[in-house]
């Protein structure tokens, strides 16, 4: 690289990005750490220094363990369905046997992705409605009336109902990403396997899975990150209830800060969310190979 004369362009071109990131991304992060040592409310500018009080409260807070466990349930179920099932689905759709229906099914499965999560959550309010809901009506229709349930009003089923909605919303999207990855696999590999007489299941495990290893890894990473950050779905559908049964970390943080007006402790909860996701994001940045082109 030859040495250029100093020119103003790089500085000018970078300035807006740096300024925005500084003010709205990095300063809030530092501020949030600072806030966690204080006790304050939304509308008062006075902050009371409380030292590690908020962190002590964290250990005594029963809702935290419920919320974390719900985030973990979210992550496990989402990984199984959105990585496992989505990969199998993509493999089936890319199979020659289904080449006639595949284009249509791809569009169908992708449809929920196009719809805003707030609309989806309102729609699933109708699906789970105990009196007229689609789910209970369907169970009645096929004679499984004893399975009818107050899906969102029962502490046992609320979180799973929320998670199920998320799967409905996202599985088609991950399937599409896997389809893109599968289409990049060289056809010769499958042809060679055909000659060796490998069946479909064998080909799936010996060729497809190793070849889309990277996509599996990245999708797992995104899915876990998304599960740690999930807010809209439980907030809109159940508001974390009944009780705290479907609360997740971000809903707990929001309610602590903006409903109970306990901003200091909410900042401490935000730190937990940050720690849960920052490491995953770091791995993701390392993985995204900048400078490659397709």
């Amino acid at each position, binding site marked *: 690289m030859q040495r250029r004369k100093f020119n103003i362009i790089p500085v000018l*071109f*970078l300035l807006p990005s740096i300024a925005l990131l500084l003010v709205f991304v990095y300063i809030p992060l530092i*501020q*949030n750490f600072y*806030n966690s040592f204080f006790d304050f409310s939304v509308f008062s500018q006075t902050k009371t220094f409380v030292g590690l009080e908020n962190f002590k409260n964290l250990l005594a807070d029963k809702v935290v363990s419920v919320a974390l466990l719900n985030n973990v349930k979210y992550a496990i179920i989402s990984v199984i369905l959105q990585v496992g099932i989505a990969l199998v689905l993509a493999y089936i759709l890319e199979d020659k046997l*289904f080449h006639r229906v595949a284009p249509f099914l791809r569009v169908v499965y992708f449809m929920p992705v196009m719809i805003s999560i707030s609309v989806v959550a309102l729609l699933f309010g109708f699906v789970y409605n105990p009196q007229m809901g689609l789910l209970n009506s369907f169970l009645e229709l096929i004679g499984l009336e004893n399975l009818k349930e107050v899906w969102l009003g029962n502490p046992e089923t609320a979180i799973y109902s929320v998670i199920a909605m998320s799967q409905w919303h996202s599985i088609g999207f991950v399937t599409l990403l896997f389809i893109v990855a599968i289409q990049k696999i060289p056809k010769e590999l499958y042809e060679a396997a055909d000659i060796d007489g490998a069946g479909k299941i064998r080909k799936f495990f010996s060729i497809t899975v190793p070849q889309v290893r990277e996509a599996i890894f990245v999708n797992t990473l995104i899915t876990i990150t998304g599960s740690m950050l999930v*807010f809209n779905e439980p907030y809109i559908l159940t508001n974390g209830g009944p009780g705290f049964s479907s609360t997740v970390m971000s809903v707990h943080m929001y309610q602590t800060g903006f409903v109970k007006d306990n901003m200091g402790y909410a900042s401490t909860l935000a730190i937990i*969310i940050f720690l849960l996701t920052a490491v995953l994001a770091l791995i993701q940045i390392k993985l995204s190979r900048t400078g490659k082109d397709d």
Partner: protein
Amino acid sequence: MEQVIKPSVEQVIKPSRKLRKFSIGQFVTMLMLAAFAIVILYPLLWMVISSMKSYNEIFNDVWGLPSTWIVENYSLAWSKGISGYFMNSFFVTSVTIIAVLIIGSMAAFVLARYKTRWIDIALIFTIGGMMMNPQVALIPLFNILTNLDLINTHWALILTYIAYRLPLTILLLRGYFLSIPKELEESAIIDGCTEFGIYRRIYLPMSVPILLTTIVLTAFFAWNEFLFATVFIDSETLKTIPSGLMNFRDALRTDWGVLLAGMVLASLPMIALLIFLQKYLVQGLSEGSVKG
């Protein structure tokens, strides 16, 4: 497992073009695909059908078609608030897209073309923003925006949306810019082209696909963002669609048909955008691998 040793029916009898081996496994798979398609499609179809029903018909006959198709639900939804949310979402989304494109491409241009220690630091600084997420910054942002007197204005959303979209945008654009051949700019410099000219005349026109990807991803984010839109905007007249719909639900109580019509209306713009630009969305997501 497929049998390969035993000659199949097809090999013995000369098969017609359409005749294929039809196995139990294939049939079961087909059934599962179909069942899954119904599970996905039906709620959406139900939403559209029920948006033209009266409350009583929805409640008492959840599956049935409406006895009269009440198309007025749509004009009611529009006039009762959706039109306002629409305008707000449209404004916030368009300004965000334009700003992200300009600001992000300028930064990516410099980060792709220069190589110094400072540029490396700037690169880490901008892309490192991907580690942050809106939830963690929510409370400090609320304070900062209050101090800037931006709370309860569209700028509270626009500025934060831009900031949180920049890291991924810069990552994607820079990656694409690096693949633009150096010879082009070298000959342009000989012809007396300025630095800014190279950016505007060479880099931007050559990067249309990735710019479209950025537009789709940003539009999708800004149109659907819920948390900031709920916390930073109080006034009913300024709400965007996601937070506005919640108000709509509370205001309408039992006017389900109108609510459902509003939900359908709210979904249409993104469906249209994605039908046209789906290719760019998928490309962006498999490269940047970020969930919307």
